[in-house]
């Protein structure tokens, strides 16, 4: 008998089941692969970098694949959440915290001290970890690796191998499988390979991940990019136009048809990593009402910041060269203001009633932006807005939002805050798509009449921290701007209560107070306010 007294306190953390021999071997294999990367980081001089890089990446992949096979293929198809809250890694235990610290440290070094990874400065050759990746980068695009190439490669491998694991975990669920294949495809093709090939074909073009759109790639309208788009004539202009169409036409249309999930959990790279490598942490998101309130203020503040920042950046360089840019500073500000007025007025007109108090908060954000635009008009010079350097505003955004929030906190804190902290609290793109989803999308999660037993699996496994149960137990459909449509609530529901679907706009939001099952008279009574 175990000498540990396992009395009722163990409700929260009883003994974990341990892993099989096969899984131990798999772990060892993967860790050896990882160890090669660590050695490279410590400036070990590998004789043949190409061989060791290949070996390392293959060992990591094989280790994960064998581990996943043994974890899922040895069992019958079904929900595989046994022991999630007993395992250290997935319940903020020691391993979870350590992983969080290591990931966070990695992101800080990656963003702010790439030379520590071996990035060669002033034309020197790369060393260390980045040097190890040179052969692969040379192969793909004929140039030495950079910290972003190393990051991109590891990121892509993570999505692919953990995507494979996720597919096995949900091998009874085709929605989950297709969605995962989709993020794997977009990451490998659009984020990783195509930009490298584009560079080979035309090295003057800026790096462009076609599936990334403003404001997620907040840098897309920076002057250096716009200049090089314009200088590259047809291809460049095509990309620029595609970038603008993505925001104003393509994404609203797709969100109208399918909800924001078409992007957030089928295409997006941040979402892709969260859904695959981050899957073990989805249950860690906070479901408290207070977290929801914080979320709404934070994400919309970031959105306002990104709109003002981008407008300011474009505004400053528009004055440079009237021959190059037909758009003048003031016309640009007027266009932005006009667009915002149009959006705000039509939302109030069509949806004002439905939004209630939220409309007031929306108005605050709106006026902040408009005031900023007026401010830009009066204080703007070719380099400054609000008497600050526009470049400074841009760097602040890049530093605090682009690097620290999305990278360091967003991913580094996976094992602490859950896998969608960035998507939920920070991503301005998610805010825009969420706004569209809440207002004019055909997407909703339908609740199945009176079948809900309030068990709470749906809420627990919602990575966005939505208290799904609070809707399901009232028989109410879930229409929330933050929902990324991952479909896991529906998968883990033991009673078949939830279904993600696209249907007409009428009756999409059905806040009844009573569920199906009662006699019709009672439903009338209780629903009378």
């Amino acid at each position, binding site marked *: 008998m175990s000498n540990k007294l396992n009395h009722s306190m163990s409700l929260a953390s009883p003994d974990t089941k341990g892993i099989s021999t096969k899984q131990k071997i798999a772990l060892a294999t993967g860790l050896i692969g990882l160890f090669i990367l660590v050695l490279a980081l410590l400036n070990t001089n590998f004789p043949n970098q190409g061989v060791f890089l290949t070996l390392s990446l293959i060992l990591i992949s094989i280790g994960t694949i064998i581990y996943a096979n043994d974890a899922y293929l040895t069992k019958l198809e079904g929900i595989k*959440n046994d022991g999630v809250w007993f395992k250290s890694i997935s319940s903020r235990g020691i391993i979870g915290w350590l992983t969080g610290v290591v990931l966070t440290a990695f992101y800080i070094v990656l963003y702010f001290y790439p030379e520590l990874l071996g990035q060669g400065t002033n034309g020197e050759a790369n060393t260390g970890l980045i040097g190890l990746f040179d052969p692969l980068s040379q192969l793909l695009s004929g140039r030495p690796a950079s910290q972003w190439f190393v990051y991109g490669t590891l990121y892509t491998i993570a999505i692919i191998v953990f995507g494979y694991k996720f597919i096995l975990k949900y091998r009874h*669920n085709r929605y989950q499988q297709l969605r995962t294949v989709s993020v794997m495809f977009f990451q490998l093709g659009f984020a990783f390979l195509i930009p490298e090939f584009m560079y080979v074909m035309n090295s003057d073009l800026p790096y462009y991940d076609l599936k990334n759109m403003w404001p997620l790639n907040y840098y897309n309208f920076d002057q250096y990019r716009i200049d090089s788009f314009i200088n590259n004539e047809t291809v460049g202009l095509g990309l620029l136009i595609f970038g603008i169409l993505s925001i104003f036409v393509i994404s609203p249309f797709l969100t109208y048809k399918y909800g924001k999930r078409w992007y957030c959990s089928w295409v997006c790279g941040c979402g892709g990593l969260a859904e695959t490598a981050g899957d073990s942490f989805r249950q860690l998101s906070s479901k408290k009402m207070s977290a929801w309130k914080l979320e709404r203020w934070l994400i919309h503040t970031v959105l306002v910041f990104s709109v003002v920042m981008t407008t300011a950046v474009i505004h400053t360089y528009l004055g440079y060269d009237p021959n190059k840019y037909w758009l003048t500073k003031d016309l640009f500000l007027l266009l932005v203001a006009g667009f915002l007025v149009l959006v705000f007025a039509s939302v109030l007109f069509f949806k004002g009633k439905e939004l209630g108090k939220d409309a007031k908060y929306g108005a605050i954000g709106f006026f902040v932006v408009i005031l900023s635009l007026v401010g830009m008009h009066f204080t703007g010079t070719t380099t400054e807005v609000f008497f600050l350097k526009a470049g400074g505003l841009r760097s602040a955004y890049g530093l605090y939002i682009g690097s620290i929030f999305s990278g360091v906190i967003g991913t580094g804190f996976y094992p602490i805050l859950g896998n969608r902290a960035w998507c939920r609290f920070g991503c301005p793109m998610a805010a825009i798509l969420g706004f569209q989803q809440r207002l004019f999308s055909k997407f909703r999660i339908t609740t199945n009449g009176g*079948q809900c037993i309030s*068990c709470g699996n749906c809420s627990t496994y919602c990575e966005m921290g939505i208290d799904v149960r609070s809707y399901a137990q009232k028989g109410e459909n879930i229409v929330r701007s933050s929902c990324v449509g991952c479909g896991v609530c529906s998968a883990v529901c033991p009673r078949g209560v939830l*279904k993600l679907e696209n249907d007409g706009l009428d009756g999409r939001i059905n806040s009844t107070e009573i569920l199906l*099952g009662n006699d019709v008279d009672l439903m009338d*009574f209780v629903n009378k306010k």
Partner: protein
Amino acid sequence: MEHIVIIGNGISGVTAARHIRKMSDKKITIISAETDFFFSRTALMYVYMGHMKFEHTQPYENWFWDKNRIELKKGYVSNVDHQNNQLLFKSGETLSYDKLIIATGSKPNKFGWPGQDLDGVMGMYHKQDLENLEKYAPNNSVCKRAVIVGGGLIGIELAEMLNSRGIPVTFLVREKSFWDAVLPAGESAMINRHIKNHHIDLRLGMNLKEIISDEHGKVKGVVIQETGEVIDCNVVGLTAGVSPNVDFLKESGIELGRGIKVNRHLETNIPNIYAIGDCAEQHEAIGNRRPIEAVWYTGRMMGETVAQTICGNKIEYKPGHWFNSAKFLDIEYQTYGWVFGKPKEYEEQFHWKHEDDTKCLTVSYHKDTREFLGLNTFGIRMRHEVFDKWLTEKRDVDYVMQHLEEANFDPEFYKTYETTILSTFTSSQLKTA
């Protein structure tokens, strides 16, 4: 201000309290001896399995009760003194009420088996049962084998729980096939096979004779009635159904049968005392329903109904069409309308099973009128709303089979089986015609 006191903080009592609060300003107190806050009993299994923490089973955050001015009191009510409108607590305290709602739920059945009160013998109903299980079956080195007695919904959940921690399980089922009093033969047989596929030692047609004790008063094994076989085990789960938790009312003067007798307004024989949920027993059964219904949603509906009555809008408890759901290990089950395990004389059943042996469906209809009576579905989700409508409209079975696709509730991109089901149905009709 009128004081409404509710004994029991389960789904029935809490729903009543919430709706009374919505409609009135009355003072509301909920009493429980089990937990401080409302939790979902149906989710206890997921805590043991590590899918959730206990706090996740609580549908409302802890500030909810204060904010809605619902007072929570922890205590065990030992009697009701209705002459003085007063509750007596085990601790000696008293509490006065103006109106009393009894929502004390159920307790696991014990049938007087020798050894049924030994250490390591437990039901799986209360939070305390979960704590007990955690104590006696934390892992497979402390608990080398567990025996479960009683093949119903709780029994199979307990089997799944123990299985999740790698504890070998022997599952004694009195019936010839799992839950065959409720499930038609084809479905029941499929679940038998599914249980065995999970490496659970399913013993059909077997009863418990006695539970054997070791020298410390702890379970050592069980003896099977039919074969005399002794099975060594460290835990025995008694899951042979539940019955109303009403023993504390025996001297109270409130009329009891198996449960607390109530009329359609959920009133007991004593004015101002109501009973709802698992502990309430209708004088006469409603439709095909049982007089005592220990189901999550009926508790909720009774809570909604009694809240109306207490707030001055006296209405009857009128449950609509029967429905229910469960999950047997990996296979989800839903039912709408009535499909009987032993078909009634007027009932005809059509059964379809997928070759992978994890999906099947049974449709019940009236032999003569062909009216659609109900459907059981395994491994395929169906839409409650659609079946509720079809049952109200009294659709015939042919209509239902042809429109089955409209009722499908499986996630997007799932393979659908309606066409196969319809063609199987059509050819079965030709054979019988």
